[in-house]
């Protein structure tokens, strides 16, 4: 493996020399300024496509100045300043330093990044594309002097050197031979999906080491309380029944009436990245996604957006009021009525123009995973496309509208899935509490203390044995 890599490294060097030569020649020509301009434009477009801004900008913070806390099962990972500020940003990075961070997950000072930075995906970036990105960050991005906040994870995850072993196992993507400009069709779609947009970072399940499972490619994965759904070509479990145009509309607007709306991380991806791509690129991306091998879940008997309107109910009222200092516990129907119905309608129809979506024919509510429904209730929705904002308030513990308890949210989610989706999700208050805290902890985090008892090398040995075992099972289940 090491040999292969060094071969590629040499190959890259040759490429670099050739490109450098090419650049030197073009620099000599009179079109140099225009060339730089178009390179900067290309870099900007690639940065949008790679959605750098989403993680590297804090709420209400300056673009690319970092400081956003990225929830991970090990704890919050704080994104860094990637503006070209010399002191606090990456102004002192050479292009090689920049490439090493993007593709190997190694900082200029030699420290390892955590894979919250999707360097396993960016490892596939073409050298010329990295050059454009580098130029863009160095010349077009405004330097911001803002010190990085340290990321503080618990032992042993605070030992960044551990990532060396992890990288040995899981950093295996090779740089693309062709640059973005010269890719077309499915190849371009794949490059967009796998390398730039890094779809699989969220949508592929993770193995016991929290690396992406190749066998589950885009098959859906839990993610900090949310669930990034199956987006393979499976008609019932994925997006197999979506047309290419529908996918493009979704990428552009985060909304396909009667099917799905983007919330959580996907709303960010649409707002910051996908909606800025060209139509042609979105079509290439959609075509690529549509041919990803299906992963079927046998419990999905129909697509998650294909649960249609329930029978209309008669709204009868008691005529009685209760004293406000003695509120009675409400059931799911009443909680729905008093928190959701004023916008989504008593019968879940949404608004006539579907600016407020119907709750049936709604992928969030028809999904077997109730996570996204619960997270939407807890966090609301925020999406901004072309200056137009879509907003649903939070009903979580900082809401000014209504703070719902775990029990209330469980009753509400069960009612909503029962009435508008595939049936009562049977959530309990404790499930909501888990989702509120960012979802169930993966195996590695839960059992790390037990694993650590084996100590030192034994620890690594056990991990790799477990990994091999899981890899085999993965293959088996993929084959079956």
């Amino acid at each position, binding site marked *: 493996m090491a040999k292969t890599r060094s071969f590629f490294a040499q190959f890259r060097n040759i490429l670099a020399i050739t490109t450098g030569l090419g650049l030197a020649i073009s620099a000599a020509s009179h079109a140099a300024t225009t060339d730089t301009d178009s390179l900067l434009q290309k870099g900007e477009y690639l940065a949008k496509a790679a959605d750098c801004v989403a993680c590297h900008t804090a709420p209400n913070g300056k673009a690319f100045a970092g400081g956003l806390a990225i929830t991970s099962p090990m704890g919050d990972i704080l994104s860094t300043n990637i503006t070209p500020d010399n002191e606090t940003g990456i102004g002192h990075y050479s292009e090689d330093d920049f490439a090493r961070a993007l593709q190997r997950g190694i900082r200029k000072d030699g420290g390892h990044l955590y894979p919250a930075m999707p360097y396993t995906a960016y490892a596939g970036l073409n050298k010329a594309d990295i050059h454009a990105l580098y130029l863009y960050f160095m010349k077009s991005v405004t330097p911001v002097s803002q010190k990085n906040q340290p990321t503080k994870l618990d032992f042993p995850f605070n030992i960044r050197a551990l990532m060396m072993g992890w990288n040995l196992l899981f950093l295996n993507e090779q740089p693309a031979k062709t640059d973005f400009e010269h890719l077309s069709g499915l190849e371009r779609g794949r490059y967009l999906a796998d390398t730039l947009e890094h779809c699989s970072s969220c949508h592929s399940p993770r193995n016991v080491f929290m690396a992406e499972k190749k066998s589950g490619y885009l098959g859906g994965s839990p993610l900090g309380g949310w669930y990034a759904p199956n987006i393979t070509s499976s008609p019932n479990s994925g997006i197999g029944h979506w047309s290419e145009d529908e996918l493009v509309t979704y990428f552009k607007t985060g909304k396909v009436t009667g099917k799905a709306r983007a919330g959580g991380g996907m709303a960010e991806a649409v707002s910051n990245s996908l909606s800025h791509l060209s139509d042609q690129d979105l079509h290439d991306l959609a075509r690529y996604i549509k041919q990803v091998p299906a992963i079927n879940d046998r419990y999905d008997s129909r697509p998650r957006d294909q649960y249609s309107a329930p029978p209309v109910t008669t709204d009868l*009222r*008691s*005529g*009685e*009021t*209760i*004293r*406000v*200092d003695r*509120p009675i516990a*409400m059931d799911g129907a*009443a*909680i729905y*009525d*008093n*928190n959701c119905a*004023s*916008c989504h309608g008593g019968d879940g129809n949404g*608004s006539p123009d579907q600016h*407020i979506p119907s709750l049936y024919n709604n992928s969030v509510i028809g999904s077997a995973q109730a996570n996204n429904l619960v997270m939407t209730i807890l966090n*609301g929705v*925020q999406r901004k496309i072309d200056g137009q*904002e879509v*907003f*649903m*308030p*939070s009903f979580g513990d*900082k*809401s*000014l*509208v*209504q*703070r*719902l308890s775990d029990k209330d949210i469980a009753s509400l989610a069960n009612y909503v899935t029962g009435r508008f989706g595939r049936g009562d999700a049977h959530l309990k208050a404790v499930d909501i509490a888990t989702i509120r805290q960012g979802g169930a902890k993966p195996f590695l985090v839960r059992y790390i203390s037990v694993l650590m008892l084996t100590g030192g090398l034994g620890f690594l040995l056990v991990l790799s044995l477990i990994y091999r075992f899981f890899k085999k099972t993965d293959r088996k289940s993929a084959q079956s």
Partner: protein
Amino acid sequence: MTSKNDLSADIVIVGSGVAGSSIAKELASTGASVIVLEAGPRIDRQHILDNCRNTVNKNKYDEPYPPSPWSMHPPDQSTPNAYLHTTGPDAQAYQQSYLRILGGTTWHWSACAWRYLPSDFELRSRYGVGRDWALKYDDLEPFYYQAESMMGVCGPDPKVEDLGSPRRQPYPMEALPLSYAAEQFKKLIDNRTAYRVVHEPQARNTRRYDNRPVCEGNNNCMPLCPIGAMYNGIHTVLHAEAAGARFIDNAVVYKIDTDASNKKVTAVHYYDPDKHSHKVTGRIFVIAAHCIESAKLLLLSADEKNPNGIANSSDQVGRNMMDHTGVQVTFMSGLDSLWCGRGPLETNVIDSFRDGSWRNERGAYLVHMVDDNQIDLATALAIDKGYVGKDLENEIRYGASHLVRLFSHNEGMPDPDNRLTLSKTHKDVLGIPHPEVYYKLPDYTVRSCDHSRKVFREIMGLMKGSDPRWTPGYFPQDHPAGSTIMGHDPKDSVVDGYNRTHDHENLFIASSGVFASMGTGNITLTVAALALRVADTLKKEIYHG
């Protein structure tokens, strides 16, 4: 360990409405310790909304808020004298409605967020009637903007539509679009009369604000905005709590103590629902318990040193009770369908009578074309007329699309005879007397109302209106003011220009009680601005004083 019987804070505030909670938020944000005592319970939106949906008479906007026995409030305007007892020739016109619960009366309001006009603060100087305030518009301007930012107020661009109150900044949010009915009404008034219709400034979201949603037009502002798009005092309560303020609900303050010199307030006492008494000491005290309840508490605290009540050496506490007592008519328009009731309740105002040289003899006013759903009334009228079957349905449809409601806010006038006292006959479960108000509409306001009726008739004529239903007599607007009136002279006023009581240097009053004139705009924004100015004074007091 501190027991519940021995509480203390830098700032002790009585009342948790927009005034009390905004002072609490401001002071707690600076690190001061703040205790807010609220007579009523803590409630949440979903339970009130459940009540709303269950009530039969949707127009009774107090009905979803059944009072707790220890924190009674007037049940509604159509059930007089159940808590607030009114007497005098215009007793029925002073049946005010308000809430005693955490967050205060802005749980149900129409979110009209008017600034007063500069002239409203100088009525005596400019027109030779009434009183001047002990502050001027310019003193309050920065706090108006702070209040608008805190509450989230939308309003028209002053360059396009100048509402007469000079602004240094634009409104925090763009104006609410007019509803179809309001647009038609505006066209008619602007084109066919000498008057104009303007966009009303509203504490209501036209974009995401404070992480609350945009108005969805439920037309339910009163009794309750079901989605939190309209500002409620509870939002500021929650912000204040996040900043560290402590709110104690079900705490009915009944007594204020002063020191031996009578210059300083030392403590307040409150009852919990079981009538156990608790004492709260502090450095500075703010009474922010609504115009009526604040005066009631001051009177109730009478002792040997203060035989007329706290802060009442002038004998003005409880006097000068005012309102925007107005007139109201509903009629059937003969023009095209209007379909009132789409969008929020109030979006537009005729502001042509808010100021003028005639204010030396009659009060100013403004007119609301209320944009509320008319199906209830249309149905009652159609049934009254004996329609049945398909005809009944058609008649309801016609009525709902053609009924129009107009009402006016007419300027009150401070008159010491219009007076709040403690009831000698009615007491609540804690033994605290109910409030009682004598009210005779000042002639100044009567003449203003007469003028409004003339204008309403003119509008009805233009709209080929029929079947007018005038509300008998005068219409209370739930904007009580004047009970702790502001002025320079301690002999005839209760507080100075900073809302500080003349009698006690560490006692402030933050409520419409301090208003020295009534103006025409809804009072809440001015209450909030005055409260934020009190907060500003208190910050100076505790950090540099």
